[in-house]
């Protein structure tokens, strides 16, 4: 079984990964690309309807 200290480290690491990925340029760039792609798809869908 893990010691209380090891458990605390794991819990802390969960939070740190969370916060770190919120600021990740790589992930945020991917999200932006996906949003743009979705926007373009929606735009095409609107054009198709027109």
């Amino acid at each position, binding site marked *: 079984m893990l010691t209380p200290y090891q*458990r605390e*480290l794991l819990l802390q690491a*969960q939070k740190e990964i969370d916060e770190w990925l919120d600021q990740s340029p790589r992930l945020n760039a991917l999200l932006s690309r996906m949003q743009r792609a979705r926007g373009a798809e929606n735009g095409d869908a609107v054009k198709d309807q027109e």
Partner: protein
Amino acid sequence: MSLAPIPDFAGSLKAHLRRTAWGEFPDVIIHAEEPVVKKHPAYGAAKAGDSAAAEILVLESSPIGALDRMSEALWGRGPHLLAVHALETEGMNAIPQVLAKILSKLLDLPVANGIIQINRVTHTGASGYHRLASPALFGGEVTEKEYFLVDDFVGQGGTLANLKGFVESQGATAIGATALTGKAYSAKLKLEEETLKTLRAKHGTELEQWWIDAFGYGFERLTESEARYLIRADDADAISERIAAASTKRD
């Protein structure tokens, strides 16, 4: 029949190990094939706790197609994504938590923090009996109603089954699970009725009682892969002996 004595671990395991009924638990959604993940240059560092390596690994090996399958599986529900967050031999495995966080961003779902694996197991490359004898145990606060479980790898499925049991024994529901990689046949966690019948017919009720005394749950809560593994054993004595032997080498 001459079953091995119940291993010494039984008391401590039963204090923490929970398995719950399978219900309609769906197949695990697997994102990528094993070689794509395990031969990726970032895999070793990610497994040892490097979050940046885990991010690269997940983004470069997780095809967008799996996101569509996840969206379909969610049916508009908004469960918390719960990663198997564990200290392993190589270090703190960063892959499940990073996968959970990336999925949360892509699918607009919250991530659950505060639940961790409370023991250290060495499952990578281990035998099936070793995996069965050293189950992952979980602890922490179950604060949400619905969870979707996230791991880096699904093999026999015991770790996901134990995390499901942990949250469900405290009133929550695990509505599904996803893994970055795993063998296709490992995706089915829910035990098939036919497999259960075959297992019971081959190894009998005495072994099942031994199993309950050792692990605290009956055969009906095994995963499909675990049950199939046990069916392949020659007889009940061999199973009890191998579990007992593996328990002496537990982490």
